[in-house]
């Protein structure tokens, strides 16, 4: 039995969505063609756009939905278009935001509290000290991909708007896990992605207020009204829309996922009260738990969990092939040693209580054999040093 507990990296395509995709995927459909097949393709893309707008309670007069190939592309598109702004970001953002922030002349890193939330008082102060700066862009993820911490986006947006800034929020992890009303939150730009909500990989979107101008990063045909050239990834976009239509029910199911996650954490805490659970003091995504196993490095944990059939991760799915320590935890905790022992467990709506119980048993077994050994070894080392 393999138990998948890495849903923040990606999730399988939902069966209902896949069935709908397979009904149409064999048609040669390019939305720019004027014939029958072309109009059909255009219908699929526009249907998906409408599904997203409906779900987020936004309309085409106020907001644009622009399809892209990934969350990374959306984030790049937004930030690179607005490079002449002063950028304000938390150091806990996704790599695609942080690597783009390197390109800005003026970047300010926002101070965070012990849960990784933007400190609101300090935000007010920052707004005051940058009062004279006309163009201020804030990029703050709604939910962190590693800890699951949910920012007070509505309050943050109010503070920013009061002082003449604009707010982009990377909602890739929050979208489809918690319900929200985009207009009510007040964000000006947002990023969402298909493969995190049960649609196909290869589609994502930028949502932006219509009055904000973005420059394309891909030049060419007039697809997406000139914002994003390239033949639309029709079937992935269609799957995105179909997955969005299922979200109300899915989000409902996440309430049970939260119970399962809490059960997991409580059970492990009863084994070892010294466990550190990051961002546990604030609102988190219902499925995410980022926690330490004292004395056992994350590399050792993920390897052993994999051998036992549990898929977890030690942070975001990165590319380099090297498992690095989390930049998110460093931003929250500084050079704290505990973070070297932290893994991310992210649940999905298909995980069962039996699977979580099996994980708890595996965790216990690993901790008792590896963690305790380490503790004894440390004690011996200490004794030797004191001799």
């Amino acid at each position, binding site marked *: 039995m393999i138990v998948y507990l890495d849903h923040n990296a990606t999730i399988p*395509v939902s069966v209902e969505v896949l069935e709908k995709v397979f009904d149409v995927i064999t048609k040669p459909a390019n939305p720019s063609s004027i*014939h029958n097949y072309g109009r059909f393709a255009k219908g699929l893309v526009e249907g998906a756009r409408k599904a997203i707008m409906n779900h987020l309670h936004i309309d085409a007069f106020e907001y644009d939905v622009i399809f892209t190939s990934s969350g990374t592309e959306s984030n790049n598109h937004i930030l690179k278009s607005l490079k002449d702004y002063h950028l304000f970001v938390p150091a806990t953002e996704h790599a695609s935001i942080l690597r783009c922030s390197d390109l800005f002349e003026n970047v300010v890193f926002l101070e965070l509290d012990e849960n990784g939330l933007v400190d609101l008082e300090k935000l007010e102060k920052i707004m005051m000290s940058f009062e004279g700066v006309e163009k201020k862009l804030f990029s703050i993820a709604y939910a962190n991909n590693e800890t699951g911490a949910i920012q007070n986006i509505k309050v943050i947006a109010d503070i920013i708007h009061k002082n003449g800034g604009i707010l982009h929020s990377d909602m890739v992890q929050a979208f489809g896990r918690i319900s929200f009303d985009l207009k009510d939150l007040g964000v000006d730009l947002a990023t969402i992605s298909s493969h995190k909500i049960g649609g196909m990989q290869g589609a994502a979107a930028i949502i932006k207020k219509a009055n904000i101008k973005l420059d394309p990063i891909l030049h060419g045909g007039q697809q997406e009204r000139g914002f994003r050239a390239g033949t639309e990834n029709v079937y992935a976009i269609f799957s995105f829309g179909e997955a969005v239509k299922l979200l109300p029910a899915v989000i409902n199911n996440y309430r049970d996922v939260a119970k399962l996650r809490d059960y997991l954490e409580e059970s492990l805490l009863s084994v070892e009260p010294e466990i550190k659970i990051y961002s546990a003091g604030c609102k988190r995504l219902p499925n995410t738990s980022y926690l330490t196993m004292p004395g056992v490095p994350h590399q050792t944990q993920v390897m052993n969990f994999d051998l036992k059939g549990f898929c977890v991760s030690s942070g975001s799915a990165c590319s380099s092939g090297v498992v690095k320590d989390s930049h998110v935890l460093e931003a929250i905790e500084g050079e704290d040693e505990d973070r070297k022992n932290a893994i991310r467990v992210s649940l999905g709506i298909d995980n069962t209580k039996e699977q979580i119980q099996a994980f708890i048993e595996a965790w216990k077994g690993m901790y008792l054999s590896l963690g305790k050994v380490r503790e004894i070894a440390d004690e011996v080392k200490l004794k030797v040093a004191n001799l």
Partner: protein
Amino acid sequence: MLKFPIYMDYQSTTPIDPRVLDEMLPYFTEKFGNPHSRSHSFGWEAGDAIEFARGQVADLISANPKEIIFTSGATEANNLAIKGLAHFYKSEKKHIITVKTEHKCVLDACRHLEQDGFEVTYLPVDTCGLLDLNLLENSIREDTLLVSVMAINNEVGVIQPIKDIGGICRRKGVFFHTDAAQAFGKIPLDVDAMNIDMMSISAHKIYGPKGIGALYVRRKPRVRLEPLMNGGGQERGIRSGTVPTPLVVGFGKAAEIAGMNMQEEYESIKRLSNKFCAGIVDSIPDVYLNGHKEARWPGCLNLSFAYIEGESLILAIKNLAVSSGSACTSASLEPSYVLRALGVEEELAHTSIRFGFGRFSTEEEVDYALELIKKSVGKLRDMSPLWEMAQEGIDLKSIQWSDH
């Protein structure tokens, strides 16, 4: 049994091959891992599948798999090649050469670079659509960074002498990029023999899935690019973003199938295309084939039907899914800039239709299409005053149209 509309727009996109779809299926559900997850078997399995597909794509152009960078499609690959190279070398060289008949995204990327201080030479083509190699060679300057010439034109099917162009570029020490979206998998391409430094390719033009393509980037001598997308550092840092495993797996399979059947498929498409072309030209007067008669991909026939509006003919032959030019620009009623570059007069350019033939075209479809076109052209010309005047021997160019 014929199925309507008959698909004759293979340059715009192609239906996915069932064998490709079969290969992709498990990666949507059972093997759904994020290929960049390095901590568990789902991730490794997806990662392995991507590397296998990278090899399948590389094999078809005799490249090293490490030289294949997956992108969201050929438009992204063209943007990455041209803008990525220009931005990396901008302090050294500031001149780019391309051709007036390139795909819109190549021209648009170049225009964008002009705003950034680059100088771009847009070379003309002859009336057959071919580039003059002497002109190309003489246009290369001390500060020329890049020559970008497409392999097969998407509107008229003309094949440029890629190997000769590659030779000139190598001799002159400039980078050579080719947009091979219409050529990859259809004609033999060899990046070493042709001295190609960068090549843009697309999956959905060769019966693979949409939303995936690649840029071939030479490693020796090394071509360096500034990424369009920064982030997790996927694709050797050149293109960040989760690589979509099922799409890449389909891309690899599509490349493999295209390589296996290339010669056979070429012959069968050529036979159908020749039959169609001969059937039209023999029975309808005043029809012109645009582009070179020999140096062409037979699966793309661009015909001008004098004295008829292309759009009204398209409406009259609704049972055929065809296009009046490139799909990317077909929403506009402007005559094609590609045909204009070939010197096709505006009147005639307005009457042109692109007929595409591909893997799933059949003889029965060609026969049906021929009859339908003959009938429709006859009917439309019977209603056309221009046709009537032309039959009476009036030179239409001599008429002074009055302004309204």
